[in-house]
C-alpha cells in the first residue's frame, strides 16, 4: 500500500500512509478509543453492549449532550466557558413544557393535540434560549465579566427560574408531535432510513469530489486517487453500517399492535417493522452539518477561531470581538433549547432535575473531542465523538452493574486523563 502511495504522489518525498490520506491523527486516536471502549464492554456484557437495541438507545441518549457540545466548541474556542448549559436547558425545557400544556391550550385556546402546538412551542423555546445566551454574551463581551462567573451565576439562576416556571413539578404528558422528536417514538422507519443513508452517501461523495475539483482548479496538490477512494469507501461503509444497525432493531410486537389499534386497524399476522434512524439523530446530524459549515465556511466561524487564536490580532483586524462573544453565547443558548427539546421529548415529560450535571458532560465531550481550553482549536465532529464516548462509558458501566457513584468517579477520571493524553499528544506532534 505504502509503495503505491509514494509512486502515486507527485511529491518526491516519501510520505507515510496516514499522511497521504490526509487524516487527522487525533481523530483516528479518538475513534480507536471509542472502538476499544465498545469492544471491552461487549466482552464484559457477553455481547449485550453491541446489540442493535443498545446502539439505538446509546444513540438517542447521546443526542442532547452532543447538540450542546457543538456549541461549547465555539465557546471554548473563543477562550470562554459556559457552566450554565444544564440549567439553561432546564429553563428552556420548562418554558416549552408550560407553552404546550398551559399557555397555548389554556390562554390562547389552541386545542390540545393541535399540529400548531409543537412548532410554536419550539420557536418560543429557541428564542428564550438565544435571548438568555445573548444576555450572557453581553455580560461577558461588553461588561467584561469573566464567562466563568457569569455562567456560574447562570447555573444557579436558570436552574431555579425553571423551578419557578413549573413550581418544581413534573410537567407532562407532552404534545404527541413534540414527543416524536425525542427518539424512540419518532423514527424514520426502514425505507426512510435507507433513503437518508443514500442521501448522506451522495452528499459525502459530492463533498469529496468538490473539494478535489477546487484544489485542481487552483493547481494545489491533491492526494492520490486511491487515497481519495479509500477514504470515501470507509465513509460510505460507516454511514450505511449505521443505518443498517438502526434498521435491524425491530419494534416489539405489542407496541406495533398498539400502533395499529390506535389507527383502528388490526395488525396483519407476521408483520414486523424496524425503528430506523430517530428524528432526534436526524436533528443532531443537521446541527452538526450547520455548525461545521459555520466553523469552516463562514466569516463568523473564521472570526471565532481567529479570536480564539489571538484576540488582539482579531481586534486589530477590525473584528468586533464583543459582538462576536454575544453571537457565540446566543448560539449556545439556542442549542441548549434544542437539547432541552430532545431531552424532555425523550422522557415525554419535563422533570425538575432535567439537565442536571449536563454542563460537566458537555464540557467533557468538547474537551475529550480535542477542543483546547487555551482557545483557537476544536472541531464539531470531535465534540460529538466525545459525547458518544462519554455516553458509551456511562451506559456500559450501568449495563455491567457498576454503582452510580463509581460510574461518576470513572467518568471524572477519564476526563482528566483524556486532557493529559491530549497535552502529551500536542507536545509530541508540536501541533498547536
Amino acid at each position: 500500500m505504502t509503495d503505491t502511495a509514494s509512486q502515486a504522489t507527485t511529491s518526491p518525498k516519501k510520505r507515510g500512509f496516514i499522511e497521504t490520506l490526509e487524516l487527522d491523527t487525533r481523530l483516528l486516536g479518538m475513534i480507536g478509543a471509542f472502538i476499544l471502549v465498545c469492544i471491552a464492554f461487549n466482552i464484559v456484557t457477553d455481547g449485550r453492549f453491541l446489540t442493535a437495541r443498545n446502539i439505538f438507545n446509546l444513540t438517542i441518549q447521546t443526542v442532547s449532550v452532543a447538540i450542546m457540545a457543538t456549541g461549547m466548541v465555539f465557546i471554548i474556542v473563543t477562550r470562554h466557558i459556559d457552566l450554565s448549559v444544564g440549567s439553561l436547558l432546564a429553563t428552556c425545557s420548562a418554558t416549552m413544557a408550560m407553552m404546550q400544556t398551559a399557555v397555548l391550550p389554556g390562554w390562547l385556546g389552541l386545542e390540545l393535540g393541535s399540529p400548531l402546538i409543537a412548532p410554536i412551542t419550539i420557536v418560543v423555546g429557541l428564542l428564550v434560549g438565544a435571548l438568555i445566551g445573548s444576555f450572557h454574551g453581553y455580560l461577558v463581551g461588553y461588561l467584561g465579566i469573566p464567562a466563568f462567573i457569569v455562567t456560574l451565576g447562570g447555573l444557579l439562576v436558570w436552574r431555579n427560574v425553571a423551578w419557578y416556571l413549573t413550581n418544581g413539578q413534573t410537567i407532562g404528558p407532552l404534545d404527541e408531535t413534540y414527543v416524536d422528536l425525542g427518539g424512540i417514538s419518532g423514527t424514520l422507519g426502514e425505507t426512510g432510513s435507507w433513503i437518508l443513508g443514500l442521501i448522506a452517501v451522495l452528499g459525502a461523495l459530492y463533498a469529496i469530489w468538490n473539494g478535489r475539483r477546487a484544489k485542481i482548479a487552483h493547481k494545489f496538490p491533491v492526494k492520490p486517487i486511491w487515497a481519495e477512494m479509500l477514504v470515501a469507501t470507509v465513509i460510505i461503509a460507516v454511514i450505511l453500517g449505521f443505518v443498517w444497525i438502526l434498521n435491524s432493531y425491530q419494534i416489539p410486537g405489542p407496541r406495533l399492535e398498539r400502533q395499529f389499534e390506535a389507527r383502528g386497524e388490526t395488525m396483519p399476522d407476521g408483520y414486523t417493522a424496524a425503528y430506523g434512524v430517530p428524528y432526534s439523530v436526524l436533528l443532531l446530524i443537521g446541527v452538526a452539518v450547520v455548525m461545521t459549515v459555520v466553523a469552516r465556511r463562514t466569516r463568523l466561524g473564521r472570526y471565532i477561531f481567529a479570536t480564539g487564536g489571538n484576540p488582539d490580532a482579531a481586534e486589530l483586524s477590525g473584528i468586533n470581538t464583543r459582538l462576536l462573544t454575544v453571537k457565540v453565547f446566543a448560539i449556545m443558548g439556542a442549542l441548549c433549547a434544542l437539547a432541552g427539546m430532545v431531552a424532555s421529548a425523550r422522557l415525554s415529560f419535563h422533570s425538575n432535575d432535567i439537565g442536571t450535571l449536563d454542563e460537566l458532560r458537555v464540557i467533557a465531550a468538547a474537551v475529550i473531542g480535542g477542543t483546547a481550553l487555551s482557545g483557537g482549536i476544536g472541531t464539531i465532529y470531535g465534540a460529538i465523538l466525545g459525547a458518544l464516548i462519554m455516553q458509551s462509558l456511562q451506559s456500559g458501566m450501568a449495563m455491567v452493574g457498576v454503582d452510580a457513584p463509581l460510574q461518576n468517579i470513572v467518568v471524572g477520571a477519564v476526563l482528566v486523563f483524556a486532557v493529559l493524553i491530549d497535552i502529551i499528544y500536542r507536545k509530541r506532534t508540536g501541533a498547536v
Partner: protein
Amino acid sequence: MTVTETNAPPPTGTSPGTTPLVEMRDICVSFGGIHAVDHVSVDLYPGEVVGLLGHNGAGKSTLIKVLSGAIKADSGEILVEGEKVEITNPRDARAHNIETIYQTLALADNLDAASNLFLGRELTTPMGFVDDAAMEAETRKIMGRLNSNFKKFADPVKALSGGQRQSVAIARAVYFNAKILIMDEPTAALGPQETKMVAELVQELKKQGIGIFLISHDIHDVMDLCDRVSVMKNGQLVGTERVEDVTDDDILGMIILGKQPEKAA
C-alpha cells in the same frame, strides 16, 4: 519587485506645496499616570518615508496605534488628505487606506497564511461562504513576489519562522492597496537577506506614491530609506529633520540626549 496594482497618483515626492497624506496634530495618550505620547505632531506626504526613531518605551508604537485605530487618543486630531477624520477602531483606519504592520505582527497563530492575510476582509463565494481556495491562490501570488521562499501555505502560522511570519504580516499590509503604510519595526525578526527585501519593498512602494511611517530603534535601517526622521523621547517629539540635513551623530544625540542638532552654520 512589483507588489500591487494601485490607483495611487504618480509619485510626487515631498513637495511642500501638496497636502500631506496624513497629519497627526498635538496627539496625547496616557496610560494611568504615564504620558506615553505627549503633544506629538507628525505628518507624511505621498511617496515619502518618514522614520520614527526613539528608544524602547519612547512612545512610537503608541503614537502609530492612534493612527491605525488600535488606541484612541486622549486629545489631538488626525487629518487624512487635508480632511479631519475620526479613527476610533481599526476598521476606520482601513477605510482610509491606512494599513499597519504591527510590532507584534498581530497574527492568529492557529490560522494559515491566507486566513491571516484576509482576516476581516475575506474573499467570499457568490453564496457568501469564505472562499479559501481563492484566498490561498491570491496569497500564493503575493508571496511569490514578496518572499519566493515561502512555501508553507497549509500550515498554521505558528509553524512558521520569524521571518516567514513577518512576510505574512507585510503581505497583509500591502495587498489591499494601502495609501498610508505603517511599519512598526518591520525588520526586527529578519535576517540580513530578508531585511534587504524589505528595503527594496519600501523603495518600490514609495515609487507608487504610498506614504510610509517606518518605525525603528536602529538608525542605520532608517537613514538609508527615509526622507525625514521624527525622533521621540519619553513620549515627546524631540524634532523632525530631513535626512540630508543631519548626520547619524545628530540623530543619535536627539535619541539619547533629546536635544536638537546644532545646525551647521
